[in-house]
């Protein structure tokens, strides 16, 4: 069972780093992980890549799946976008490959 838990770090908007454990077998994403730890991520649209309220910056070198067209389009409507680092948390699915991922929450636009 140990194998199904990965560690991720979320840096909040005050700069505080939160080390979180996330299960890989629950079909979760980073937006949901942040919400379940009560970190200030809104997730207004419920994870459909339609609101950009879970916009976060990937700070680690973790290899991530490519952005979908929906995610790209939604990030286009977001503010404070960093072309290299910006992702929508709801589109980052918790898989073993995400172990040791470090993300930083984007400012609220």
């Amino acid at each position, binding site marked *: 069972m140990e194998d199904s838990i990965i560690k991720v770090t979320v840096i909040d908007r005050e700069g505080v780093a939160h080390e979180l454990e996330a299960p890989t077998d629950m079909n979760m994403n980073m937006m949901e992980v942040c919400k379940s730890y009560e970190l200030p991520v809104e997730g207004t649209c419920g994870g459909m890549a*339609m609101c950009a309220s879970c916009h976060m910056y990937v700070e680690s070198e973790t290899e991530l799946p490519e952005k979908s067209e929906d995610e*790209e*389009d939604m990030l286009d409507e977001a*503010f404070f976008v960093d072309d290299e680092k910006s992702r929508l948390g709801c589109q980052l699915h918790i898989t073993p490959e995400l172990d040791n991922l470090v993300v930083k929450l984007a400012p609220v636009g």
Partner: protein
Amino acid sequence: MIETDILIIGAGPTGLFTVFEAGLLKLKCHLIDSLPQAGGQCSEIYPKKPIYDIPAYPEILAGDLTDKLMEQIEPFKPGFTLGESAVTIDKQEDGSFIVTTNRGTKHKAPIVAIAGGLGVFEPRKPPIENLSEFEDKGVEYIIKDPEFYRGKDVVISGGGDSALDWAYFLANGVAKNVALVHRRNSFRGHLDSVQKVMDMAENGKLNLITEAEVVGVSGNGVLNEVLVKHKTQGEIKMATNHWVPLFGLSPKLGPIADWGLNISKNSIEVDTFDYSTNIDGIYAIGDVNTYPGKLKLILCGFHEATLMVQSAFAKIHPDKKNVLKYTTVNGVNGF
């Protein structure tokens, strides 16, 4: 003055279903919503997206859920004040409340049920420092009357349907010149909207500036110029008196936060016995409330609404015994 039994603030799924449960107990409802249509997030943000956790519907589009709720509550003839947001609440001597909207519409009811979801949808504003100086002085977040732009130079920002549709509309003989500024080469809008705008740009009827964003505004009292930052060409100054940034809407709890309700984590604290707030006669149901174990799900909102109207009934009719109606016995009898 609009008078009703239960004044519901927010016409999302929870607010709409409240009308049904209240109607079974012969209580009339009126709903206020800042959006121009009922349905809340379901109709505003994702009408075409499927929802999978509504009991008995393995899959239902958010827009269809709204339509079905409207159909379900139709027998109870709810009233609607749409396109207006509830701003103030005043408790009367008789214990009832008067809620006034931003347009001054007054509503009176003995019970107020806040089903406001994440709050009032407000236009998302680009992070430009001095932007507020030019609001309504050249910077408009909503196009209320396209005629306002007749014969003028307009810059529009955004890549969604509203940006595309307005750019197309205004460039079609209304405004003198229209520029559409967007961060990327592709657009989020419907394919035909995108195509129409592309065609216009090709015919020189619209100035399409992609891979660019407006990063600054300036002027003397009114907007004179926007600063456009292009990915490869650097910064370009564009003279214009009108900039319309269309980046969608995001919800804010808004004036309700100042009604004296106990609030934590941007949500209203309630007693899970009947979803009452700290103010007698005001309830909070659905995504807007919080309590230990709270889950922000539509189906939880339905449950909360159902229990809430029982308590509301007891308050409105203290002399009557609580009633529980099974729709299986007599069906639904409207007003």
